[in-house]
């Protein structure tokens, strides 16, 4: 069960053109900001929206092929979809919800009940089958929605922001469970999300979509470590500095020079992690070769540290402890010195 898709949609201001390939048992996360076209992509894969161009196939079955006008409507595709808000049918019990897909496919009542019961057990909703969806918590509803999507053993599972409607605590628990079910699922999975944590925790591979185009693809670790756009860098919490490699220095496109540990040449990205940036009130003496005067433009608490946005010749983000933040007397507009060790700057080809 391998998904191969090229999806082209032109709709108002949205111009989507994305290629995807997802192997058997693989989980692909489509990560992108709101309005990037992620949900449109998912609707096309589900068959809810005919694309304007491209081709979608799963194994040998062609679901969409625009040049030859092939379009298989959603109800004839072997898909399971979990939407953001569970969307359990309010007029049916939880068990009837889970069994819905079997009922439409003509499975007999007894078999349907057994399968629904088994799935409710698997997602930890034992004994809640007779309830109405309104009497479930958000996490329980999302589990039931997952069971409903998986009970028909679809070739393709589509998850549309499946955790974003949950509160932070529930999200942690449900995320771990979803991960377990995805590991057991034999088909291909496409997960659409704007939450990098979901993508990192659940996906084998990530494609980043911005403004309808794939801007980066790779394993979650690669994407996290070597972001290629500001959006991804911000998600990963990195400062992304595009420039040109000149030996052990990178001349930044926006001005300034960053010393690095490796020799590079040509167009490169230099990426700086916030925890490797140190701040001083006076220009420090000593080993760091990257020392820049910067100005604090914003500060937000970030766990036990304060994330400081710094403007200057080289724009940076720094994490300092709350204690250091107070000691340095940092207020917006404060002029400080920022240092980064050359060895802590990641540098990679553009």
């Amino acid at each position, binding site marked *: 069960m391998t998904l191969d898709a090229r999806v082209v949609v032109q709709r108002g201001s949205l111009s989507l053109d994305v290629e995807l390939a997802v192997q058997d048992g693989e989980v692909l996360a489509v990560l992108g900001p709101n309005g990037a076209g992620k949900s449109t992509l998912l609707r096309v894969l589900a068959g809810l929206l005919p694309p304007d161009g491209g081709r979608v196939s799963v194994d040998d079955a062609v679901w969409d092929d625009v040049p030859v006008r092939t379009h298989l409507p959603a*109800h004839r595709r072997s898909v399971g979809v979990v939407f953001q808000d569970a969307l359990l049918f309010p*007029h049916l019990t939880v068990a009837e919800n889970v069994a*819905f897909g079997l009922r*439409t496919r003509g499975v007999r009542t007894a078999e349907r009940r057994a399968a629904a019961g088994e799935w409710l057990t698997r997602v930890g909703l034992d004994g809640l089958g007779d309830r109405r969806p309104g009497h479930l918590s958000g996490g329980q509803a999302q589990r039931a929605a997952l069971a409903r999507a998986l009970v028909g053993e679809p070739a393709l599972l589509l998850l549309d922001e499946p955790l974003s409607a949950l509160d932070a605590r529930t999200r942690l628990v449900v995320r771990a469970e979803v991960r377990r079910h995805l590991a057991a699922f034999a088909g291909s999975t496409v997960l659409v999300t704007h939450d990098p944590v979901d993508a990192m925790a659940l996906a084998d591979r990530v494609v980043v979509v911005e403004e309808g185009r794939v801007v980066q693809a790779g394993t979650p670790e690669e994407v996290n470590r070597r972001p290629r756009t500001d959006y991804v860098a911000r998600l990963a919490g990195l400062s992304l500095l595009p420039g040109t490699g000149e030996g052990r220095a990178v001349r930044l496109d926006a001005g300034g020079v960053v010393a690095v540990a490796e020799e590079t040449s040509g167009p490169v990205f230099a990426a700086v992690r916030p925890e490797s940036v140190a701040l001083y009130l006076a220009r420090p003496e000593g080993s760091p070769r990257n020392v820049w005067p910067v100005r604090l433009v914003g500060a937000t608490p970030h766990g036990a540290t304060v994330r400081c946005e710094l403007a200057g010749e080289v724009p940076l983000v720094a994490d300092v402890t709350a204690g250091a933040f107070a000691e340095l007397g940092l207020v917006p507009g404060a002029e400080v010195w920022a240092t980064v060790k050359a060895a802590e700057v990641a540098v990679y080809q553009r």
Partner: protein
Amino acid sequence: MSRSREGAGIPPPLLVPAALGVAFLVLPLVGLLVRTPWSSLGRQLTAPGVGEALRLSIVSASLATLLSLLLGVPLAWVLARSRIRGRSVLRALVTVPLVLPPVVGGVALFLVLGRQGIVGSWLDEAFGVTIPFTTTAVVLAETFVAMPFLVVSVEGALRAADARFEDVAATLGADRWTTFRRVTLPLVAPGVAAGAVLCWARALGEFGATITFAGNFPGTTQTMPLAVYLALQRDPEAAIVLSLVLLAVSLATLLLLRDRWLGRAQG
């Protein structure tokens, strides 16, 4: 506390007309109750013709509601969900009977379905069926006038219902007809029920289109409103009693709507 008292204060320029408005709407009904000949009520109610008119009214209004459901719910779906061209024109056409004087509707029905009418003459020749001045005509006249209420109500419910449930059903293998039966209809059931009650109440009170298209024959086409009108001219007491019956039915309908459906549909 003081704020809520301030909020409750109604400026006199609004209070006086509002009070007059209430009086205007309620006093006639009070008058009806005051003038009701309570002592002879039992005799009046069992008088020949009353039961017959009431039964005919209820049966024809129910049949009109049934017909409206069969035609109106699919029509509302088309207006709310389909992407056919000219949908707004269609909606306008469908709701014309809401604003059209019912007597005009009666004339129009007569011109089409009458023995000389476009469809009526064909029905007469092909099947020997004549519609005007029959109970069928009563049902058709009431349907013509009342169905738009149902269509508007159901279309509103369909628009308010979350269409994403229909997407979910499609991804679970349901074609559009299955989705309509198993998901859409149950979701808008409160709206359909409210629309049906409105439709029934409107059909029950129908006068103009009925008398024009179906005439006024006791037992076959003389419904309660027609009986009231006729009785007022020869026996005002009987008219009052008949009106009281209609008022009771209307109030019952209103209570039914409030408690069972409208509250929940709006909440």
